[in-house]
């Protein structure tokens, strides 16, 4: 009886829920929801009264993406980024689409003159701006490389400077502040480094002039930037986000490094992050393994790994300043053997395939092991069958990536030396 009742109840519930769920109706409340949002903005005084699309004068081609930005001025007279608060539209959705966060994707090249299409940005209270953006695959005619940070004068040594470029194309269109398709390089005789976002990192102890070259194919331009260390007052370093003059750590500890510089300009002081410019070194590099910050990856950090017990000094140099930190490492690290991956003497990959090798130092004293891949000397013994790359540097997952370069079959002997030990492995391409 109870079973019959339960079945009846379940059937009834299913019937009623399915009947009811399919039968709802509601007055369109979109306008009401919008009015509530408008009222909120009015009350807060943050309703936008004018806006302007920025960084729109670029040249894209099919498949490219470009992040647009819109700045608005609210009823309090304050300026703010409203890129994510507005409705975006393009004049031709078949040529370019744009998402709610202002990321524009060029779907195909525009057939119009100079490849121009119109993009518009509209706020909830119908304030709008529209600009033209160019989507066309046309060769560059000239580059005008320019310094943007600082806009004029010399760069404070160690502080990142920045360059950008205006590119004129053969159809007469000029893209402003664009490094798209540009290859940047610096004079090799200086301390300067540059990444493809145009950031210039300098560290010389004297005034240094560096020539930066921008190239798109055969079209080039050069710009000379000067780095001056005279305003550099001091540098401060931090270890795992804390400032210490002496570190007491154990074998196997990995310490994140960061650095800031203080500049004196007249009576004012300003502090800048110089983690990408500073040079790290150790008095005895056997005790610690250093991983510099990559200038091509803004998320990377410099770090070091404590490899052996003992005392060493970590040096941080930039411009005319140096910071010395004593590092005391405790623990046992009696190297017993080296092991590549799981210890096999050979591995197989397919043509054009990849394998990641990790080198572990095994310590007999405490039966532990450390990934020392990035601190070892690897050799492919002049083989042209593979290329290699260090990956995940600065982490416990650091690896030595070996990639077959062609369809050619063969065997590559890879040897690696760490400390006093040597190990090897055969890579069969088959």
């Amino acid at each position, binding site marked *: 009886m109870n079973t019959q009742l339960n079945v009846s109840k379940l059937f009834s519930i299913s019937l009623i829920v399915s009947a009811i769920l399919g039968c709802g109706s509601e*007055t369109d409340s979109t306008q009401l929801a919008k009015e509530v949002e408008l009222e909120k903005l009015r009350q807060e005084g943050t309703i936008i009264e004018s806006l302007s699309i920025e960084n729109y004068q670029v040249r894209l081609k099919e498949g490219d993406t470009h992040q647009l930005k819109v700045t608005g001025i609210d009823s309090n007279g304050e300026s703010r980024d409203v890129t994510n608060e507005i409705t975006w539209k393009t004049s031709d959705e078949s040529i370019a689409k744009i998402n709610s966060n202002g990321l524009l994707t060029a779907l195909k090249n525009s057939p119009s003159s100079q490849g121009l299409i119109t993009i518009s940005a509209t706020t909830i209270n119908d304030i709008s701006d529209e600009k033209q953006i160019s989507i066309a695959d046309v060769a560059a005619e000239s580059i005008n490389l320019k310094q943007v940070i600082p806009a004029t004068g010399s760069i404070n040594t160690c502080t990142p400077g920045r360059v950008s470029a205006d590119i004129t194309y053969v159809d007469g269109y000029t893209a402003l502040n664009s490094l798209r398709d540009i290859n940047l390089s610096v004079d090799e005789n200086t301390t300067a480094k540059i990444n493809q976002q145009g950031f210039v990192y300098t560290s010389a102890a004297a005034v240094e002039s560096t020539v930066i070259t921008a190239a798109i194919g055969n079209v080039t331009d050069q710009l000379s930037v000067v780095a001056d260390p005279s305003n550099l007052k001091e540098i401060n370093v931090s270890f795992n986000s804390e400032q210490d003059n002496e570190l007491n750590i154990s074998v196997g500890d990995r310490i994140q490094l960061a650095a800031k510089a203080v500049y004196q300009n007249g009576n004012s002081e300003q502090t800048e992050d110089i983690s990408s410019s500073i040079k790290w070194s150790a008095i005895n590099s056997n005790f610690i393994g250093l991983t510099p910050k990559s200038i091509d990856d803004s998320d990377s950090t410099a770090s070091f790994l404590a490899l052996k017990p003992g005392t060493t000094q970590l040096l941080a140099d930039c411009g005319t300043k140096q910071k010395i930190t004593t590092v005391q490492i405790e623990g046992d690290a009696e190297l017993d053997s080296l092991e590549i991956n799981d210890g096999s003497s050979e591995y197989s990959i397919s043509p054009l395939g990849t394998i990641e090798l990790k080198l572990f130092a095994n310590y007999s004293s405490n039966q532990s092991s450390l990934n020392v891949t990035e601190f070892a000397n690897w050799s492919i013994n002049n083989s042209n069958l593979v290329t290699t790359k260090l990956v995940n540097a600065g982490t416990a997952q650091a690896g030595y990536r070996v990639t077959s370069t062609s369809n050619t079959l063969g065997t590559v002997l890879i040897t690696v030396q760490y400390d006093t030990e040597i190990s090897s492995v055969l890579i069969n391409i088959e």
Partner: protein
Amino acid sequence: MKKYILLFIFAASFQTKADTYYLGADYMLSDIEISSESAKPTATFLRAGASNNNMAFEAQYLISSDDDNIYNLEFELEKSAALFFVMQSDVVKGFGLDISLGYAKNEMIVNSASEKLPTNYNYDGFAWGVAVHQQIPYIKNTQVRLAYQSLFKGDDVEISGVTLGLTYHF
């Protein structure tokens, strides 16, 4: 119309006749949520139901008691009529739990300075609720009841509320 026919078929599928009838009156602190803002107008509603074998049919009718503002917009849950199928737990020491599934027709009024904005809004659809009730000592057949009800959930608007009231069983 289809929903009423289905509900009628469902009601007719009850195999035995009701053995208890009840009436209730509740005070509701409603919550009208729109654009991440909410208004909390109050309302009063009456309930009438018939139960059998831990199942019940319940009709309820709500009338507005007060309005509430979201900034300069005045919200009022003008009226709401709902029909629920109620699954009732066994009553232990006077305490019981009900779960309701049903259909509600809600009418909301919004007053604003904007002439472009409509005043009346109707939201009809699935409604559900969960309630606990406790027999009141010394007052025969009377329970105090605390419940949460979701009267509508749509794309832009959600109407729900917490209710407190009394139920009398005949």
